[in-house]
């Protein structure tokens, strides 16, 4: 399993891998929104939590179809399905690799980009914490969507349509944590729900995704 994680990370960081795509998108969005909205600080502060979370979500979405499609094209998915590691573990490891390549870097650069959006200072720790808790859910739900659409032609479009509604709760609670944090309000409830989504997704979806892959490989 460690071997699979290392291979996926190595592939992502080599030329032609997916690293940087989501990050660049997130960066562009955070730079362009202030230019589009205008210099009025109050407006920017109010929309900053939402924009940052929507940006992180779309950045995650960009690289989802690579999770299984590449392995399916070159035949490794068939070989992994007959390998000694259970397919459930393959899904979990690949979701983890996706998170390390997209979710974690997004979390780390988010405070820097929040400056562009004039996020109130009290919001910074909550922005990092909410992304840290919420982006794993984005990767795991995304891996599930990728498993459902693996092997389909133009599966990417279907994948986005399938996954977006599943991303909505994460987005709502994630944005809410940052907004409440920035305004010094109580935020234990959205924070707990955000963590619950991530934990629930991590516990259940690898099994669902593995059976989807088994059906798709037939």
């Amino acid at each position, binding site marked *: 399993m460690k071997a699979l994680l290392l291979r996926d990370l190595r592939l992502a960081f080599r030329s032609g891998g997916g690293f940087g795509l989501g990050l660049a998108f997130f960066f562009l969005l955070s730079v362009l929104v202030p230019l589009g909205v205008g210099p009025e600080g109050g407006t920017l502060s109010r929309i900053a939590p939402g924009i940052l979370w929507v940006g992180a979500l779309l950045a995650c979405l960009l690289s989802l179809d690579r999770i299984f499609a590449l392995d399916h094209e070159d*035949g490794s998915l068939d070989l992994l399905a007959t390998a000694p590691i259970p397919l459930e573990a393959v899904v979990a490891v690949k979701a983890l690799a996706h998170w390390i390549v997209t979710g974690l870097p997004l979390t780390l650069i988010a405070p820097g980009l929040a400056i562009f959006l004039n996020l109130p200072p009290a919001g910074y720790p909550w922005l990092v914490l909410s992304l840290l808790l919420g982006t794993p859910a984005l990767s795991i739900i995304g891996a599930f969507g990728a498993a459902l659409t693996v092997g389909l032609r133009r599966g990417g479009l279907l994948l986005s349509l399938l996954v977006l509604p599943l991303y909505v709760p994460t987005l709502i609670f994630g944005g809410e944590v940052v907004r409440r944090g920035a305004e010094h309000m109580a935020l234990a409830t959205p924070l707990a729900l955000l963590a619950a989504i991530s934990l629930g997704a991590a516990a259940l979806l690898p099994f669902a995704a593995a059976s989807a892959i088994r059906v798709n490989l037939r």
Partner: protein
Amino acid sequence: MLSLSNLAVARGGVTVLRGLTLTVAPGEALILRGPNGSGKTTLLRTLAGLQPPAEGTCDLPADSVAYAAHADGLKSTLTVSENLSFWSRIYGGPAIDPALRALDLTPLTRRRAGELSAGQKRRLGLARLLVTGRPVWLLDEPTVSLDVASVAMFADAVRGHLATGGLAVIATHVDLGLPEARVLDLGPYRARVIQSTGFDEAFT
């Protein structure tokens, strides 16, 4: 030991082969022959456990199988040794050097898989079988794009595998230089395709 009883396999919901009953003992190789579309790949995928049998039983523990498909499962941005050591670690870490030597890949270890020729890629794909350490090899057209010398090298690898008590099921059109192997023609097992009888049926 591989044993099939009255096995039927289906592709896309249509049964392509039925009534397969046979056993392959350790140390034995079985060569599947049949025209394109006769169900060789479907049969191998069923044996590998990638799809369930349509009928009958296939007695083969899933953890004894090493499957080699048309695609080699190589990552073009990884080097030859990175590709092979990945699979070796997945299968519990046997050394990759004997496998590299057996298929004459030692001079290429530091090349990226994307820069290899088609035949070299195929050899790397076959070297993967040697690091799996699994007793049952299921090979789908293993000699595609191999030259004569490489086919001989591959035949030696199969023979070495059989000598250690392994068994192999190989779908191929080419003479592999394995005269001791049993040949199974899939022709008699083809499921009859029900042909549509045309427009007239609608008017009767």
